[in-house]
């Protein structure tokens, strides 16, 4: 009995990986063949990108601010308060900016995508789409993937800047650093490797945010109750995957001696 359950569990997970990979390959491939749904992609950029702007900016600003506050106490012990700009800039650009932006966007959009597609599935709109001659992957998944791939790196850049701005506010008001001192050190601290790392991560995270939402939406079962379940699972899985991928990608960059 246990063996049967274990076998079914493992097969289910392997199948999920296979289906997710299939979803990724097909949605990427569809961008290079007709028909393309450019209007849908622009609409999704507005929904996912512009729609997430406020929460991303606020998250970035206050994360940078609290990072400066916490670090200030430690640095002041060693008389190195001047390094605040450097610490905030490196932390935001390398890790906190990309990861927190992705987590916020996942919380808002993976759930939204899963619930929207899940609702369409249970109300037979996906079947109707296929019956009317449309490939749902091409119409629903590809626009969401490319919209997230374009907007998430841009949101990350804005979050990074807002984080440094938050750090600047705390540094000048609490640590009494001059604005010029803070920004000069922050700017000088950032190397190409830091920016490369911080700007390549969002592409991986974008794939997770968009496709995890689409995957759970397309695998919704059990009516409206199932939509709720898919939504919750999409957010949880997307957030965990973002953190796991972040760890392994960072480890990969370190192992390859990139930085």
């Amino acid at each position, binding site marked *: 009995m246990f063996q049967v359950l274990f076998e079914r569990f493992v097969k289910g997970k392997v199948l999920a990986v296979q289906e997710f990979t299939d979803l990724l390959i097909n949605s990427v491939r569809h961008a290079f063949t007709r028909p393309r749904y450019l209007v849908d992609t622009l609409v999704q950029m507005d929904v996912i990108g512009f729609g997430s702007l406020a929460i991303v900016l606020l998250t970035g600003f206050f994360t940078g601010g609290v990072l400066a506050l916490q670090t200030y106490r430690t640095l002041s012990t060693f008389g190195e308060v001047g390094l605040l700009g450097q610490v905030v800039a490196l932390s935001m650009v390398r890790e906190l900016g990309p990861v927190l932006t992705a987590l916020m966007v996942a919380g808002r959009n993976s759930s939204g995508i899963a619930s929207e597609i899940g609702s369409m599935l249970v109300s*037979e709109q996906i*079947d109707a789409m296929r019956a*009317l001659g449309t490939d749902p992957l091409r119409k629903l998944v590809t626009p969401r993937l490319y919209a997230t791939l374009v907007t998430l790196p841009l949101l990350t850049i804005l979050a990074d800047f807002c984080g440094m701005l938050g750090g600047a506010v705390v540094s000048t008001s609490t640590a009494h650093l001059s604005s010029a001192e803070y920004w000069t050190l922050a700017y000088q601290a950032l190397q190409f490797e830091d920016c490369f790392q911080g700007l390549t991560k969002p592409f991986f995270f974008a794939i997770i945010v968009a496709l995890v939402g689409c995957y759970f939406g397309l695998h919704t079962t059990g009516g409206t109750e199932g939509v709720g379940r898919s939504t919750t699972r999409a957010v949880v899985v997307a957030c965990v995957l973002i953190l796991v991928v972040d760890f392994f990608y960072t480890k990969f960059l370190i192992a390859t001696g990139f930085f």
Partner: protein
Amino acid sequence: MTLPEAEPPPRARDRSEGQTAVVELRHVSLAFEEKQVLNDVSFRVGAGETLVLLGVTGSGKSVLLKLILGLLKPDAGQVLVGGQDLAPLSESQLYPIRQRMGIVFQEGALFDSLSVYENVAYRLREEGLKDEARIERQVREVLRFVEMEHALEKMPAELSGGMRRRVSIARAIVNEPAIMLYDSPTAGLDPVTAHTINILIAKLRDVQNVSSLVVTQRLADAYALAHFTYSAEQQGLVAVASDGGLGRRVPTHFLVLRDGTAYFSGSTDELTSTPDPYLRKFLA
């Protein structure tokens, strides 16, 4: 209450042997995981004919429609549309075949984010039609056919159940399909609205000679389709017997599904005169 033991179906046989079938199922079986949904189901629908699929909930009626559209693939057997087997075809190869069919889903399945106009125009745009004037003309024409032209700019959420069903019919017929599939088109509707939907189904069948498969649990609707024909003069249904002017019979047949098997296949008279206890109970 227990159902009587399943006996050999009283009249589960293929009809119209030798005629060209627009839709044909040959020994189709399908299971979802361990649940057998369809078991060795065969039937044919000829040009201009109507097949009414009857059966209790979960008997596999809606699944049959999805098989005919190629939305599902059978585990065994063949699904032929216009003589072409759908099983070996890829999704992209199925699109031209689906263009010859229209489907009305149980709840309409209108796209929530699109207006009535955009819902109906959807298929035309997907087929690559760019001429906006022509799209509008066709959309207005089919919406007038279902008497919904006034709701052109409304969103699906603003429509009643009956209106959604009518818009769904308009969306399905906008490219003039040869085959129409109706999945419980009158379920959950009041009798008056259900009658309006029946008139539309009969109108399509009798005016445009569209072959139809109608899934229903409402015997009254099934009998209406079998015994009445659309009269353009009266803008409604007239009994076949009194329609001497047209001098034609309504080519309607019945298929009763029981636990995924074709339990009965035959005409209205054969169905109503059957002594089979299950069917008698079903018809009661």
